[in-house]
Protein backbone atom coordinates (compact mmCIF):
# COMPACT_ATOMS: atom_id res chain seq x y z
CA UNK A 1 0.00 0.00 0.00
CA UNK A 2 2.92 2.33 0.69
CA UNK A 3 3.42 4.20 -2.56
CA UNK A 4 7.03 5.02 -3.34
CA UNK A 5 5.85 6.32 -6.69
CA UNK A 6 3.99 9.14 -4.93
CA UNK A 7 7.19 10.10 -3.18
CA UNK A 8 9.25 10.01 -6.38
CA UNK A 9 6.64 12.03 -8.26
CA UNK A 10 6.37 14.76 -5.65
CA UNK A 11 9.91 14.96 -4.34
CA UNK A 12 11.06 17.64 -6.83
CA UNK A 13 8.25 20.05 -5.93
CA UNK A 14 8.69 19.37 -2.22
CA UNK A 15 12.46 19.80 -2.38
CA UNK A 16 12.04 23.06 -4.28
CA UNK A 17 9.89 24.42 -1.46
CA UNK A 18 12.84 23.80 0.87
CA UNK A 19 14.38 27.03 -0.40
CA UNK A 20 11.87 28.96 1.71
CA UNK A 21 12.65 26.79 4.72
CA UNK A 22 16.36 27.55 4.24
CA UNK A 23 15.78 31.23 3.53
CA UNK A 24 13.61 31.78 6.59
CA UNK A 25 15.79 29.82 9.00
CA UNK A 26 19.06 31.15 7.58
CA UNK A 27 18.06 34.80 7.33
CA UNK A 28 16.21 34.48 10.63
CA UNK A 29 19.35 33.14 12.31
CA UNK A 30 21.51 35.93 10.87
CA UNK A 31 19.03 38.55 12.02
CA UNK A 32 18.82 36.80 15.38
CA UNK A 33 22.58 36.98 15.68
CA UNK A 34 22.63 40.74 15.07
CA UNK A 35 19.71 41.54 17.38
CA UNK A 36 20.89 38.92 19.85
CA UNK A 37 24.30 40.58 20.12
CA UNK A 38 22.61 43.94 20.79
CA UNK A 39 20.30 42.45 23.40
CA UNK A 40 23.26 40.71 25.00
CA UNK A 41 25.18 44.00 25.22
CA UNK A 42 22.10 45.58 26.80
CA UNK A 43 21.69 42.68 29.21
CA UNK A 44 25.20 43.09 30.65
CA UNK A 45 25.20 46.88 30.45
CA UNK A 46 25.50 49.05 33.53
CA UNK A 47 22.37 51.06 32.65
CA UNK A 48 19.36 49.65 34.55
CA UNK A 49 16.96 50.67 31.77
CA UNK A 50 18.95 48.71 29.18
CA UNK A 51 19.07 45.68 31.45
CA UNK A 52 15.35 45.91 32.12
CA UNK A 53 14.63 46.14 28.41
CA UNK A 54 16.78 43.11 27.66
CA UNK A 55 15.08 41.19 30.45
CA UNK A 56 11.60 42.01 29.16
CA UNK A 57 12.60 41.25 25.60
CA UNK A 58 13.99 37.83 26.42
CA UNK A 59 11.08 37.01 28.70
CA UNK A 60 8.49 37.98 26.07
CA UNK A 61 10.01 36.22 23.09
CA UNK A 62 10.75 33.10 25.08
CA UNK A 63 7.41 33.14 26.87
CA UNK A 64 5.06 33.53 23.91
CA UNK A 65 4.84 30.60 21.49
CA UNK A 66 6.34 31.40 18.08
CA UNK A 67 3.07 30.42 16.42
CA UNK A 68 1.33 33.25 18.26
CA UNK A 69 4.20 35.67 17.58
CA UNK A 70 3.81 34.98 13.86
CA UNK A 71 0.07 35.58 14.00
CA UNK A 72 0.66 38.79 15.95
CA UNK A 73 3.04 40.01 13.27
CA UNK A 74 0.45 39.09 10.67
CA UNK A 75 -2.72 40.45 12.33
CA UNK A 76 -1.43 43.27 14.47
CA UNK A 77 1.57 44.94 12.83
CA UNK A 78 -0.44 46.18 9.82
CA UNK A 79 -2.77 47.96 12.25
CA UNK A 80 0.13 50.08 13.46
CA UNK A 81 1.09 50.85 9.88
CA UNK A 82 3.72 48.15 9.30
CA UNK A 83 2.35 46.20 6.36
CA UNK A 84 5.30 44.29 4.98
CA UNK A 85 5.10 41.25 2.69
CA UNK A 86 4.51 37.91 4.40
CA UNK A 87 8.01 36.61 3.72
CA UNK A 88 9.68 39.66 5.26
CA UNK A 89 7.35 39.54 8.26
CA UNK A 90 8.10 35.84 8.76
CA UNK A 91 11.88 36.29 8.59
CA UNK A 92 11.70 39.29 10.89
CA UNK A 93 9.56 37.49 13.48
CA UNK A 94 11.71 34.37 13.42
CA UNK A 95 14.77 36.63 13.76
CA UNK A 96 13.34 38.55 16.72
CA UNK A 97 12.44 35.32 18.45
CA UNK A 98 15.86 33.77 17.76
CA UNK A 99 17.52 36.92 19.14
CA UNK A 100 16.09 36.19 22.58
CA UNK A 101 17.69 32.75 22.65
CA UNK A 102 20.93 33.85 20.97
CA UNK A 103 21.41 36.74 23.39
CA UNK A 104 21.31 34.24 26.26
CA UNK A 105 23.78 31.96 24.46
CA UNK A 106 26.15 34.87 23.93
CA UNK A 107 25.74 36.02 27.53
CA UNK A 108 26.74 32.57 28.70
CA UNK A 109 29.77 32.68 26.43
CA UNK A 110 30.80 36.11 27.72
CA UNK A 111 31.04 34.65 31.20
CA UNK A 112 33.64 32.23 29.89
CA UNK A 113 35.93 35.04 28.72
CA UNK A 114 38.46 36.00 31.39
CA UNK A 115 37.54 39.36 32.94
CA UNK A 116 41.14 40.48 32.66
CA UNK A 117 40.80 40.88 28.92
CA UNK A 118 38.20 43.62 29.07
CA UNK A 119 40.07 45.29 31.90
CA UNK A 120 43.30 45.22 29.91
CA UNK A 121 41.47 46.67 26.91
CA UNK A 122 40.14 49.51 29.04
CA UNK A 123 43.63 50.07 30.42
CA UNK A 124 45.13 50.46 26.93
CA UNK A 125 42.36 52.96 26.15
CA UNK A 126 40.11 51.08 23.73
CA UNK A 127 36.63 52.57 23.37
CA UNK A 128 33.70 50.48 24.66
CA UNK A 129 32.50 49.95 21.09
CA UNK A 130 35.87 48.54 20.09
CA UNK A 131 36.07 46.38 23.18
CA UNK A 132 32.75 44.82 22.15
CA UNK A 133 33.31 44.49 18.41
CA UNK A 134 37.00 43.56 18.46
CA UNK A 135 37.45 41.59 21.66
CA UNK A 136 34.34 40.38 23.44
CA UNK A 137 31.80 39.52 20.73
CA UNK A 138 34.22 37.70 18.37
CA UNK A 139 35.35 35.47 21.22
CA UNK A 140 31.82 34.95 22.48
CA UNK A 141 30.82 33.95 18.95
CA UNK A 142 33.60 31.42 18.74
CA UNK A 143 32.87 29.94 22.15
CA UNK A 144 29.16 29.67 21.42
CA UNK A 145 29.51 28.21 17.93
CA UNK A 146 28.15 24.75 18.89
CA UNK A 147 25.13 26.35 20.58
CA UNK A 148 24.55 28.63 17.58
CA UNK A 149 24.62 25.72 15.13
CA UNK A 150 22.09 24.03 17.39
CA UNK A 151 19.97 27.18 17.31
CA UNK A 152 20.03 27.16 13.50
CA UNK A 153 18.75 23.56 13.55
CA UNK A 154 15.96 24.63 15.93
CA UNK A 155 15.09 27.43 13.52
CA UNK A 156 14.90 25.07 10.55
CA UNK A 157 12.31 23.12 12.51
CA UNK A 158 10.54 26.23 13.80
CA UNK A 159 10.24 27.56 10.24
CA UNK A 160 7.54 24.92 9.69
CA UNK A 161 5.23 27.25 11.65
CA UNK A 162 5.35 30.03 9.04
CA UNK A 163 2.73 27.99 7.18
CA UNK A 164 0.19 29.99 9.19
CA UNK A 165 1.17 33.24 7.48
CA UNK A 166 1.05 31.79 4.01
CA UNK A 167 4.57 30.89 2.99
CA UNK A 168 4.72 27.73 0.97
CA UNK A 169 7.77 26.10 2.50
CA UNK A 170 8.23 22.36 3.03
CA UNK A 171 5.40 21.83 5.52
CA UNK A 172 2.79 23.90 3.68
CA UNK A 173 3.72 22.32 0.37
CA UNK A 174 3.46 18.85 1.88
CA UNK A 175 -0.02 19.69 3.20
CA UNK A 176 -1.10 20.72 -0.28
CA UNK A 177 0.37 17.62 -1.91
CA UNK A 178 -1.04 15.31 0.76
CA UNK A 179 -4.47 16.77 0.16
CA UNK A 180 -4.19 16.48 -3.62
CA UNK A 181 -2.79 12.93 -3.69
CA UNK A 182 -4.69 11.42 -0.72
CA UNK A 183 -1.30 10.09 0.41
CA UNK A 184 -0.59 11.87 3.72
CA UNK A 185 1.67 9.18 5.18
CA UNK A 186 4.12 9.10 2.28
CA UNK A 187 4.16 12.86 1.82
CA UNK A 188 4.58 13.85 5.48
CA UNK A 189 7.27 11.23 5.98
CA UNK A 190 9.08 12.60 2.93
CA UNK A 191 8.81 16.09 4.40
CA UNK A 192 10.17 14.81 7.71
CA UNK A 193 13.17 13.20 6.00
CA UNK A 194 13.81 16.38 4.05
CA UNK A 195 14.05 18.31 7.32
CA UNK A 196 16.23 15.58 8.78
CA UNK A 197 18.59 15.75 5.77
CA UNK A 198 18.87 19.54 6.05
CA UNK A 199 19.60 19.32 9.75
CA UNK A 200 22.17 16.54 9.40
CA UNK A 201 23.99 18.62 6.78
CA UNK A 202 23.92 21.68 9.05
CA UNK A 203 25.20 19.61 11.97
CA UNK A 204 28.05 18.22 9.84
CA UNK A 205 28.98 21.67 8.55
CA UNK A 206 28.87 22.93 12.11
CA UNK A 207 31.29 20.26 13.31
CA UNK A 208 33.58 21.08 10.43
CA UNK A 209 33.48 24.77 11.31
CA UNK A 210 34.20 24.03 14.96
CA UNK A 211 37.25 22.02 14.03
CA UNK A 212 38.55 24.88 11.91
CA UNK A 213 37.84 27.44 14.59
CA UNK A 214 39.74 25.41 17.17
CA UNK A 215 43.15 26.59 15.98
Amino acid at each position, binding site marked *: *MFSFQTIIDNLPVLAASARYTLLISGAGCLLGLIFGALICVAAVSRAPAARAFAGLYV*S*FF*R*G*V*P*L*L*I*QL*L*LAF*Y*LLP*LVGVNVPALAAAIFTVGLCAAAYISEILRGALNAIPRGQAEAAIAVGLSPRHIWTRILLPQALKISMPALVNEL*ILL*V*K*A*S*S*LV*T*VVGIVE*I*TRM*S*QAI*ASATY*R*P*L*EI*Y*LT*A*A*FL*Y*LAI*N*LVIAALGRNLERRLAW
Partner: protein
Amino acid sequence: MMELDLFREYGPALLRGLGVTIFCWIVGTACAMALGFLLALVQRGVSARPVQWILRAYVEFIRGTPFLVQLFVLYYGAPMLGLRLDAMPAGLLGLTIYGSPYFAEIFRAGLNAVPLGQIEAARAMGFAPATILRRIMIPVMLVSALPALVNFSIILTKETVILSMITVPEIMFETQTMMAETFAFAESTLVLALFFWVFVETISRIGRRLERRATHYLLDRS
Protein backbone atom coordinates in the same frame (compact mmCIF):
# COMPACT_ATOMS: atom_id res chain seq x y z
CA MET B 1 -20.89 45.67 27.97
CA MET B 2 -19.93 44.07 24.72
CA GLU B 3 -16.95 42.51 26.40
CA LEU B 4 -19.16 40.99 29.06
CA ASP B 5 -21.45 39.50 26.44
CA LEU B 6 -18.46 38.16 24.57
CA PHE B 7 -17.11 36.61 27.72
CA ARG B 8 -20.47 35.10 28.61
CA GLU B 9 -20.68 33.54 25.18
CA TYR B 10 -17.11 32.38 24.68
CA GLY B 11 -15.80 32.28 28.25
CA PRO B 12 -16.77 28.65 28.91
CA ALA B 13 -15.19 27.48 25.66
CA LEU B 14 -12.01 29.45 26.37
CA LEU B 15 -11.79 28.08 29.89
CA ARG B 16 -12.32 24.58 28.56
CA GLY B 17 -9.54 25.28 26.05
CA LEU B 18 -7.26 26.40 28.85
CA GLY B 19 -8.08 23.20 30.72
CA VAL B 20 -7.20 21.15 27.65
CA THR B 21 -3.93 23.07 27.25
CA ILE B 22 -2.92 22.37 30.83
CA PHE B 23 -4.06 18.77 30.64
CA CYS B 24 -2.12 18.12 27.44
CA TRP B 25 0.92 19.81 28.87
CA ILE B 26 0.95 17.86 32.12
CA VAL B 27 0.04 14.47 30.67
CA GLY B 28 2.25 14.94 27.61
CA THR B 29 5.22 16.03 29.70
CA ALA B 30 4.79 13.19 32.18
CA CYS B 31 4.59 10.60 29.40
CA ALA B 32 7.54 12.12 27.54
CA MET B 33 9.57 12.03 30.74
CA ALA B 34 8.66 8.42 31.37
CA LEU B 35 9.55 7.38 27.82
CA GLY B 36 12.73 9.46 27.99
CA PHE B 37 13.76 7.78 31.21
CA LEU B 38 13.13 4.37 29.69
CA LEU B 39 15.22 5.29 26.65
CA ALA B 40 18.05 6.48 28.90
CA LEU B 41 17.96 3.22 30.85
CA VAL B 42 17.99 1.13 27.68
CA GLN B 43 20.80 3.20 26.25
CA ARG B 44 22.80 2.64 29.41
CA GLY B 45 21.86 -0.93 30.17
CA VAL B 46 21.58 -2.68 26.78
CA SER B 47 24.82 -2.72 24.87
CA ALA B 48 23.61 -4.82 21.90
CA ARG B 49 24.61 -2.93 18.75
CA PRO B 50 21.25 -3.13 16.90
CA VAL B 51 19.42 -1.75 19.92
CA GLN B 52 21.86 1.14 20.15
CA TRP B 53 21.47 1.83 16.43
CA ILE B 54 17.69 1.87 16.58
CA LEU B 55 17.82 4.14 19.57
CA ARG B 56 20.24 6.46 17.83
CA ALA B 57 18.10 6.58 14.67
CA TYR B 58 14.97 7.33 16.75
CA VAL B 59 16.66 10.16 18.61
CA GLU B 60 18.14 11.67 15.43
CA PHE B 61 14.84 11.43 13.59
CA ILE B 62 12.75 13.02 16.31
CA ARG B 63 15.27 15.75 17.06
CA GLY B 64 15.84 16.50 13.39
CA THR B 65 12.20 16.99 12.36
CA PRO B 66 9.62 19.66 13.27
CA PHE B 67 7.00 18.83 15.87
CA LEU B 68 4.29 20.00 13.46
CA VAL B 69 5.37 17.49 10.81
CA GLN B 70 5.55 14.73 13.41
CA LEU B 71 1.97 15.55 14.37
CA PHE B 72 0.88 15.47 10.73
CA VAL B 73 2.48 12.04 10.28
CA LEU B 74 0.74 10.78 13.42
CA TYR B 75 -2.65 12.32 12.84
CA TYR B 76 -3.05 12.31 9.06
CA GLY B 77 -0.56 9.61 8.06
CA ALA B 78 -0.87 6.89 10.68
CA PRO B 79 -4.48 5.98 9.79
CA MET B 80 -3.05 4.50 6.58
CA LEU B 81 -1.17 2.06 8.79
CA GLY B 82 -4.37 1.25 10.65
CA LEU B 83 -3.59 3.52 13.60
CA ARG B 84 -6.50 5.92 13.76
CA LEU B 85 -6.24 8.30 16.69
CA ASP B 86 -8.55 11.14 17.60
CA ALA B 87 -6.95 14.55 17.76
CA MET B 88 -6.34 14.55 21.52
CA PRO B 89 -4.72 11.09 21.83
CA ALA B 90 -2.68 11.86 18.70
CA GLY B 91 -1.58 15.13 20.28
CA LEU B 92 -0.61 13.46 23.57
CA LEU B 93 1.27 10.71 21.76
CA GLY B 94 2.94 13.38 19.63
CA LEU B 95 4.08 15.32 22.70
CA THR B 96 5.35 12.09 24.27
CA ILE B 97 7.38 11.14 21.22
CA TYR B 98 8.60 14.66 20.56
CA GLY B 99 9.79 15.24 24.13
CA SER B 100 11.26 11.79 24.78
CA PRO B 101 14.72 12.17 23.17
CA TYR B 102 15.32 15.48 24.94
CA PHE B 103 14.34 14.01 28.29
CA ALA B 104 16.41 10.89 27.51
CA GLU B 105 19.44 13.10 26.96
CA ILE B 106 18.84 14.93 30.24
CA PHE B 107 18.45 11.66 32.14
CA ARG B 108 21.47 10.13 30.41
CA ALA B 109 23.68 13.05 31.45
CA GLY B 110 22.22 12.88 34.96
CA LEU B 111 22.86 9.17 35.30
CA ASN B 112 26.41 9.61 34.03
CA ALA B 113 26.95 12.21 36.73
CA VAL B 114 26.23 9.68 39.49
CA PRO B 115 29.67 8.83 40.96
CA LEU B 116 30.62 5.28 40.05
CA GLY B 117 32.02 4.81 43.54
CA GLN B 118 28.56 5.14 45.08
CA ILE B 119 27.13 2.49 42.78
CA GLU B 120 30.05 0.14 43.42
CA ALA B 121 29.79 0.64 47.15
CA ALA B 122 26.08 -0.20 47.06
CA ARG B 123 26.79 -3.26 44.94
CA ALA B 124 29.47 -4.37 47.39
CA MET B 125 26.95 -4.05 50.20
CA GLY B 126 24.72 -6.46 48.35
CA PHE B 127 21.92 -4.15 47.18
CA ALA B 128 19.81 -5.49 44.32
CA PRO B 129 20.18 -3.57 41.02
CA ALA B 130 16.58 -2.30 41.25
CA THR B 131 17.24 -1.00 44.75
CA ILE B 132 20.45 0.70 43.63
CA LEU B 133 18.51 2.37 40.83
CA ARG B 134 15.67 3.48 43.07
CA ARG B 135 17.54 4.46 46.20
CA ILE B 136 20.82 5.80 44.85
CA MET B 137 20.94 6.46 41.14
CA ILE B 138 17.56 8.17 40.68
CA PRO B 139 17.80 10.58 43.64
CA VAL B 140 21.41 11.54 42.87
CA MET B 141 20.65 11.85 39.18
CA LEU B 142 17.61 14.05 39.84
CA VAL B 143 19.66 16.59 41.76
CA SER B 144 21.83 17.33 38.74
CA ALA B 145 19.08 16.86 36.14
CA LEU B 146 16.30 18.91 37.78
CA PRO B 147 17.11 22.33 36.28
CA ALA B 148 17.18 20.87 32.77
CA LEU B 149 14.00 18.87 33.41
CA VAL B 150 12.13 21.94 34.62
CA ASN B 151 13.49 23.98 31.73
CA PHE B 152 12.41 21.55 29.06
CA SER B 153 9.00 21.01 30.66
CA ILE B 154 8.44 24.75 30.37
CA ILE B 155 9.48 24.69 26.71
CA LEU B 156 6.81 22.03 26.17
CA THR B 157 4.05 24.40 27.39
CA LYS B 158 4.61 26.48 24.30
CA GLU B 159 4.62 23.48 22.01
CA THR B 160 1.06 22.65 23.07
CA VAL B 161 -0.30 25.49 20.88
CA ILE B 162 0.90 23.55 17.84
CA LEU B 163 -1.68 20.89 18.76
CA SER B 164 -4.31 23.37 17.55
CA MET B 165 -3.14 22.62 14.02
CA ILE B 166 -4.45 19.06 14.28
CA THR B 167 -7.71 20.39 15.84
CA VAL B 168 -7.03 19.53 19.50
CA PRO B 169 -9.50 21.90 21.23
CA GLU B 170 -6.88 23.67 23.37
CA ILE B 171 -6.78 27.39 24.04
CA MET B 172 -5.38 28.41 20.65
CA PHE B 173 -7.98 26.36 18.79
CA GLU B 174 -10.82 27.76 20.90
CA THR B 175 -9.52 31.30 20.38
CA GLN B 176 -9.46 30.75 16.64
CA THR B 177 -13.00 29.39 16.72
CA MET B 178 -14.05 32.49 18.62
CA MET B 179 -12.24 34.76 16.17
CA ALA B 180 -13.98 33.13 13.22
CA GLU B 181 -17.29 34.21 14.77
CA THR B 182 -16.41 37.57 16.33
CA PHE B 183 -13.84 38.75 13.77
CA ALA B 184 -11.79 40.23 16.64
CA PHE B 185 -8.57 38.81 15.22
CA ALA B 186 -5.91 41.25 16.39
CA GLU B 187 -7.31 41.77 19.89
CA SER B 188 -7.80 38.08 20.59
CA THR B 189 -4.33 37.19 19.38
CA LEU B 190 -2.80 39.93 21.49
CA VAL B 191 -4.67 38.75 24.57
CA LEU B 192 -3.58 35.17 23.87
CA ALA B 193 0.05 36.29 23.56
CA LEU B 194 -0.11 38.22 26.82
CA PHE B 195 -1.79 35.27 28.49
CA PHE B 196 1.01 32.93 27.43
CA TRP B 197 3.64 35.40 28.52
CA VAL B 198 2.17 35.60 32.01
CA PHE B 199 1.47 31.86 32.13
CA VAL B 200 4.98 30.81 31.11
CA GLU B 201 6.60 33.36 33.45
CA THR B 202 4.45 32.10 36.32
CA ILE B 203 5.16 28.43 35.81
CA SER B 204 8.87 29.18 35.33
CA ARG B 205 8.89 30.83 38.73
CA ILE B 206 6.95 28.02 40.35
CA GLY B 207 9.21 25.54 38.59
CA ARG B 208 12.37 27.17 39.89
CA ARG B 209 10.98 27.24 43.42
CA LEU B 210 9.96 23.58 43.27
CA GLU B 211 13.35 22.78 41.84
CA ARG B 212 15.11 24.36 44.82
CA ARG B 213 12.86 22.58 47.28
CA ALA B 214 13.19 19.22 45.59
CA THR B 215 16.95 19.63 45.50
CA HIS B 216 17.05 20.23 49.26
CA TYR B 217 14.80 17.25 49.85
CA LEU B 218 16.86 14.94 47.65
CA LEU B 219 20.13 16.13 49.16
CA ASP B 220 18.76 15.50 52.65
CA ARG B 221 17.73 11.97 51.73
CA SER B 222 20.86 10.81 49.95
